[in-house]
């Protein structure tokens, strides 16, 4: 029997609508007692005065690169990065090699993640090999444990396949997660189309490409009464479309990455490929629209789109660099700095976006900080100021545009699956 006693923590739980300073006793991975002035002679005591305990955070959009690209990241290193970033759960995207489009690969992911303090849930491909042509065996993939379906990295563009996918997945109450982009408008684009791409002469990706596909997808979702989740929403136009869909009561949800509510395409003037991702960094108007979408509940979740690449892969000409940046170890700092401190969200609202809602979208068990519940917790220091140093990251990769930035709000650790992981 192992027990841990967290003393003097502020406990915030949006589900039970708790915000009090209490002690929390965990015995064998379960919340045994909750209340003021607890003591337990056998327990390891951790004083969390000034710190906050929240339900375990969940990042519903990461790329852990295993199997196939383990030089960028693997399930073990990615999970270590997640734990360091305050996440107890992640959903990993299927653009691996081989693709997560068979039950065998789904099982492989679970097997690799077994015993880790971070729960790793596979998202399986919608179509075989993510080619957008014929459906992967969605029922079998769900049976094996897939929590959602996505061809992320590529859009599901063919309207016939889109319709069938939405219809078929609706049997499972699992979302179709879309990377919304029109491939006909993609001509080797490397950044957002704007005055900045015009000045730099870089090939560009118009906002229209995302707007048009999201609007179209919502029509299809309405028509077949499907469940649709928009990955990495980045444009004000897409936010308007989702706002409208929600007002109509459609089963449409959306996530936003920290970089899309923080950075603009002005950063690309440096030609630093750590500012290259897809969707690309948009304009200041879009950044504001993303914050408004979070505030108004149009965006349900904050997800990092953690996309590790080796330094030698990123250290090339901007147009040749692969898309993507890592995000797990900066998400909490960016969310606190940009959203909480600037009063776009309250703390309970922020925890909803980082834990409650992504878990709900993926059909994961609801977390509550209550006696008798499994202890799945994130420990935060909301006041800590720190400077991002990629060399201290647990991820195998270093491709973060936030290196050197000073942020407020830092994960202190996580507790999950009977394991306490404290940050360095």
């Amino acid at each position, binding site marked *: 029997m192992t027990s841990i006693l967290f003393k003097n923590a502020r406990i915030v739980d949006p589900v039970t609508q708790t915000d009090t300073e209490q002690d929390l006793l965990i015995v064998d991975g379960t919340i045994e007692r909750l209340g003021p002035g607890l003591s337990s002679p056998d327990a390891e005591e951790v004083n969390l005065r000034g710190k906050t305990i929240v339900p375990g955070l969940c990042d519903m959009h990461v790329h852990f690169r295993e199997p196939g690209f383990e030089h960028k990241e693997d399930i073990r290193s990615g999970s270590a990065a997640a734990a360091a970033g305050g996440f107890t759960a992640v959903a990993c995207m299927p653009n691996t090699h081989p693709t997560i489009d068979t039950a065998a690969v789904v099982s492989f992911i679970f097997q690799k993640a077994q015993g880790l303090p971070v729960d790793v849930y596979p998202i399986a491909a919608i179509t075989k090999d993510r080619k957008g042509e014929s459906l992967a065996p969605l029922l079998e993939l769900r049976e094996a444990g897939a929590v959602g379906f996505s061809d992320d990295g590529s859009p599901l563009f063919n309207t016939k396949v889109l319709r069938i996918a939405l219809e078929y997945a609706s049997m499972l109450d699992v979302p179709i997660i879309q990377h919304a982009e029109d491939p006909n408008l993609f001509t080797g684009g490397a950044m957002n189309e704007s005055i900045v791409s*015009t000045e*730099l002469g870089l090939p560009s990706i118009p906002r229209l490409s995302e707007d048009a596909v999201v609007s179209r997808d919502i029509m299809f979702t309405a028509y077949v009464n499907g469940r649709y989740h928009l990955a990495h929403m980045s444009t004000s136009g897409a936010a308007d479309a989702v706002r409208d869909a929600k007002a109509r009561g459609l089963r449409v949800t959306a996530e936003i990455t920290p970089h899309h509510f923080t950075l603009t395409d002005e950063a690309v003037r440096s*030609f630093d490929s750590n500012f290259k991702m897809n969707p690309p960094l948009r304009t200041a108007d879009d950044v504001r629209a993303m914050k408004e979408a979070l505030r108004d509940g149009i965006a349900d979740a904050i997800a990092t789109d953690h996309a590790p690449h080796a330094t030698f892969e990123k250290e*090339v*000409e901007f147009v040749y660099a692969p898309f993507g940046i890592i995000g797990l170890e900066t998400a909490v700092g960016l969310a606190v700095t940009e959203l909480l401190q600037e009063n776009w969200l309250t703390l309970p609202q922020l925890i909803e976006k980082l834990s409650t809602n992504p878990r709900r979208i993926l059909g994961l068990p609801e977390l509550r900080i209550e006696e008798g519940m499994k202890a799945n917790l994130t420990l935060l220091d909301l006041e800590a100021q720190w400077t991002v140093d990629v060399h201290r990251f647990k991820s195998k990769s270093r491709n973060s545009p936030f290196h050197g930035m000073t942020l407020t709000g830092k994960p202190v650790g996580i507790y999950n699956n009977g394991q306490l992981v404290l940050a360095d």
Partner: protein
Amino acid sequence: MSSLQINHLLGLQHVSHEDITLILDSTDTFLEILERPIKKVPTLQGKTVVNLFFENSTRTRISFELAERRLSADVVNFSASTSSVSKGETLLDTALNIEAMKVDIVVMRHSAAGAGHFLSTRCTSRFINAGDGAHEHPTQALLDMCTLRQKHGTLDGLNVCIMGDIAHSRVARSNIYGLLTMGANVAVCGPSSMMPYELERLRVRIFTNVEEALQFSDAVNVLRIQLERDAGANFPTLREYHNSFGITRQRLDRLGRDITVLHPGPINRGVEIESEVADGAYSVILPQVTNGVAIRMAVLYLIGTKAE
């Protein structure tokens, strides 16, 4: 002579009026050298210049090489028609290896916008951009400005229109930035489908009617149409382009006044420019080529001899 504020010539967007003036003024000295029987000075003796060309180019490379040799620099040419990525070695590795052989100046042409900018932040050599994707081609714009200054005396208040595919043109961008800095009034003219997004946010007039553009202009800089890429993709046919946007003798004569015609070459006779114009009295196309060598001598001299 005073020295440049910039350490590298990566583009003209952030180059000051003083620096451009210094380069243009220095060019006059080198033009005089080009008229001598022995066109060689010892200015860069002992300096090594590498011409790193990742994209096909004949005239720009020859122009740079002549400029380098006439300044007595040691010259090495590196040509690779394919991108560094497809060769298996990264651009950075290529550059670091060449630099390890102790070179002083790298002149680079590359198909990727910002390639020179990227290397200049990681290497110690001085970089001169000989064209990077659709981003900038600063020595071309400098030679265009040099040619315009010769003919019109000043760039201040001069009305210059750049004609053609603005979206994909590094020549257009460098000319826009340089000319605006030097006080010219800049316009562009071409099919709407060849204008980059939000171009109106630059201080540039936009014409889609060639007659109106010519009315505005003291000089027009006619860009090359990329035959292999553009017809059918960015406009319907070459015939339609020529009829609607081609610079013809008839269109120029109708103005009833002088107008200067530049072209960065190589020209497509009968497409963006009529032969009669290219070879006629309005044209300064061959003086541009001569000025190109002098401009590159000036840039190499000013960059190569600037103190650390």
